[in-house]
């Protein structure tokens, strides 16, 4: 009677993944939002895995204005372009990305404490 059993009763949709991948323009793969501690109380938020279809420079520009913080785009040989924002912007950035329809909620993965 627990949620456990309820969970098992859920119908499994074998095409759930297919639906996710089909729509164009929205990116695939996970977007990792991380936080890093700097000196003192300062922190840094990084967003890794945004689709290269988007112009990250424009995103960062909008974010900077929206959250009133500084930010850059960093090129990384392995992870591609990564957004960096000053301060703990994890919630802000998640809301922003979903609201703008760049990333879906389930594609966001927030790391850190």
């Amino acid at each position: 009677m627990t949620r456990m059993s309820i969970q098992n009763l859920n119908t499994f949709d074998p095409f759930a993944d297919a639906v996710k991948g089909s729509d164009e323009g929205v990116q695939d793969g996970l977007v990792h939002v991380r936080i890093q501690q700097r000196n003192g109380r300062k922190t840094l938020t990084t967003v890794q895995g945004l689709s290269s279809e988007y112009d990250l420079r424009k995103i960062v520009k909008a974010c900077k204005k929206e959250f009133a913080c500084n930010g850059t785009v960093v090129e990384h040989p392995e992870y591609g372009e990564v957004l960096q924002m000053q301060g703990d912007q994890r919630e802000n950035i998640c809301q922003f990305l979903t609201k703008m329809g760049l990333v879906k909620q389930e594609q966001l993965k927030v790391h850190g404490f």
Partner: protein
Amino acid sequence: MAEEEMIFDPAMKKKKKKKKAFDVDAALAEAEGGPRANESTPVVEPSNTSIDTADGDGGEEVTQPETSIKDDLDDLDFEKLGKKKKKKKAFNLDELEGALPDTKEVGDDQNEGDDIMKEAKSDNFDLDMDFSLEKKKKKKKKKDLDDLISDDLGRDDAGTDATDSSKPVWTDSDRDYTYDELLTRVFDIMREKNPDMVAGEKKRFVMKPPQVVRIGTKKTSFANFTEICKMLHRQQKHLLQFLLAELGTQGSVDGNNQLIIKGRFQQKQIENILRRYIKEYVTCHTCRSPETILSKDTRLFFLQCETCGSRCSVASIKSGYQAVTGKRAAQRAKNA
């Protein structure tokens, strides 16, 4: 009522205590002057309950997605977190019975007449009646926290009260069984045959809280790291890797078997990460049992469940992109 519930959320703990005190009082009152208390209660009850369900449902639906997530995490109950524990305890004890009276109202829509009858009947039993009232109050408390569970319980138990009084409703009539009745019957049988399930409802996975102490200004010590690894039956290496990746720092295990992490962290934060670790790498993804074995097979980690036998791969730990936070000059010197 709706407003009340809204206010309810933030100040939950306080209210809870108040209610608890009230409950005790109520119980005492019942014990002493059963009939007197009883007289007043039936009058209040019907109106009370109808409102209760109406707004309760509305509120629940709004909050459900959140609470489900939160609830998932909350499963992993850290011991000694006094408040939380209290909450859970209260819940566990009353989980079953607590759900029952409420379901009366859930089923209300379908058979209102029935309900009234039942209430009238229960008037005869002073104690019974009052208890159900009490539980309703408790139920409300739980709403925010264990919304989902109780909601589910409520749904499944709709109409249980009939069967719970030990004989099926349909014995003395030839009418067809309703779906709800059959469902409850099945669950009752399941409970009967598996007493464990009833006792624990869901076995709680109780963890020791991590002991996190600051060392100086820049480092944090996680004192019972090895102990927790042992409790989780996971290799230190694995948990260490996960912790450091999530926190985005460096760290190591020192001679006293404590983990030293660079950066300032609080117990709450570490707890949070442990919860995530447990959810991903300890509990079985199918049955949620914590009795699992994590084994490495061709570079992939697999989680094998001891209870249900399922086996699934789990995500590998990647620390991902790490921005430069230290002194760049120092790094340059290191590379050169």
